[in-house]
């Protein structure tokens, strides 16, 4: 089932074309990887979906309805959440309060009172084994606990689609493995995920499908192992000479 449909979207900043006629669909319950060299337009695409920048042409449909002109928080409330950094809790809040914010402002959050949100957050933390850390500042958690906290937040918010923009950047290999694990677990909780990433190992590991952007255009789409070894993609990243050396495509 199609959750998110990007239909021929373009974005121009003045005379600069950041995205040109990009189309793809996101199906329920999948993890879609979005890759491409620097400046390919990945973050711009995420910005368009999250509503931070308006698109110039084309349209984006969420659950069959256009999201044109909606503000980021309206899109957030519909069920598309963007997590800029999955290991960064809200500062100056306890673990419990962090999850409460998710329960208060996520999907269905408007109907919840603060008390109900607190209960929901307590349940979620209990479920993830973080209940003992409820009342310590979120920032005092270690990396592993922070990841569990992010999962709790995502669960409390109940987003339909989660946009992860380079959330694994700057982590060491062990942390990346944990991050990949976390992304999969969030998906298993019923969230559809779009991952933008530079870390190829992670992308290959986590995504069901991958799309590749170059110079604002979609050049490839398919299974990760096919896409990552395809000549066109190697060329996009490493140039023609390397493609010839690799003797591929």
């Amino acid at each position, binding site marked *: 089932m199609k959750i998110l449909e990007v239909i021929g979207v373009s974005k121009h900043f003045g005379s600069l074309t950041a995205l040109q006629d990009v189309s793809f669909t996101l199906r329920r319950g999948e993890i879609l990887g979005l890759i491409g060299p620097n400046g390919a337009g990945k973050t711009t695409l995420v910005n368009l979906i*999250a509503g931070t920048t308006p698109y110039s042409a084309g349209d984006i449909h969420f659950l069959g309805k256009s999201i044109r002109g909606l503000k980021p928080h309206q899109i957030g409330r519909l069920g598309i959440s963007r997590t800029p950094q999955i290991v960064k809790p*809200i500062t100056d809040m306890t673990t419990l309060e962090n999850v*409460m914010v998710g329960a208060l402002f996520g999907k269905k959050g408007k109907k919840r009172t603060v008390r109900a949100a607190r209960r929901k957050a307590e349940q979620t933390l209990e479920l993830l084994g973080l209940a003992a850390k409820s009342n310590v*500042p979120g920032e*005092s958690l270690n990396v592993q606990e922070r990841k569990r906290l992010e999962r709790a937040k995502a669960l409390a918010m109940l987003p339909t689609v989660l946009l992860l923009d380079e959330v694994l950047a700057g982590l060491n290999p062990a942390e990346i493995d944990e991050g990949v694990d976390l992304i999969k677990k969030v998906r298993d909780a019923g969230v559809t995920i779009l991952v933008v990433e530079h870390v190829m190992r992670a992308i290959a590991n986590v995504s069901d499908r991958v799309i590749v952007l170059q110079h604002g255009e979609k050049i490839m789409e398919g299974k990760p192992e096919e896409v990552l070894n395809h000549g066109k993609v190697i060329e996009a990243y490493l140039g023609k000479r390397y493609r010839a050396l690799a003797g591929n495509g």
Partner: protein
Amino acid sequence: MKKIATVLVCVAVGVFLVWCPYLVSFYWLRILTNIFMFAILAQAINIIAGYVGYPAFGNVVFFGLGAYSTGILMVKFQTTFFTSVLVGMAICVLFTLLFGVPVLRLKGHYFAIATLGLNEATRAIVDNLSGLTGGGMGLSLPLRAGDIGANARYFYFVFYGTMLLSILVTYLLSRSRFGYACRSIRSDEEAAEGMGINTTKYKTLAWMISAVLTGIAGSGYAYWMSYIEPGVVFDMTIAIKSFVMFLLGGPATVLGPIVGAFFVEAVSTLTWSHLLNYHTGTLGAIIILVVIFMPQGFISFIRQGFSFSTFVKKGKKKFSGREKRIEMA
């Protein structure tokens, strides 16, 4: 247990302050009234700067707007003080609605400077509308009927009541949906927006509440002093002083700014009256010592059992970013 102790201490202090006007001299009554006024201003800054993280340096503009609303209405239109306060509040609300969206798009220093600009511009306008405001000559308000003692007590309770209101508002705000939205915005505005928080709405509302409280203080000041001029009620030193109180007391705590106001005013009065030649130096030195030894403000210091250990901890993790301020008990 700690919670009960806090409530008991607050109630005891609150009751004592109600009894105070019948105990102390007019001199101390006046000083206390002044402390209450600054406590309101510091609390108003706490709401927008402490909870939402927008350093509204130019908030004194609402003090001036409140003062001039009361002045003009009472002098030119012969309204009651109460009516003029309501109108002043309405003007502050309109002002934030008008400038909230453009100004609150700015962040950090840029926002601070923009609010400074708003204050200077408003002061210049008030200065030049001499027909209405009396310009640089100022405006003399009608004196309140009654003897000196009754008047002193009247203003004491006006400011005391408003201060209690500001504490109540902050308390309710800190534990409501609104408070959680504000604190999420302070942490990361984009992330907050992504979590479904209408940041523009909450920022503007917070600034509005802050403005209204400041406006009430301005109205009270005008009637209390019975004379206002642009240079006095749009004075940046009022803003700076309330900012110092807010920071010393403890940002984003319910009682911090109040404690800060009491401390700064009490110390400055005491140093002024006892060390006439050295009072600014002494006050400055005391503030420096407080900042060094209680970097997170009085409230954290009290919460951590009056220990200076925060200083040591703070020194070690100097570069780890913002200090943690756990929600007040």
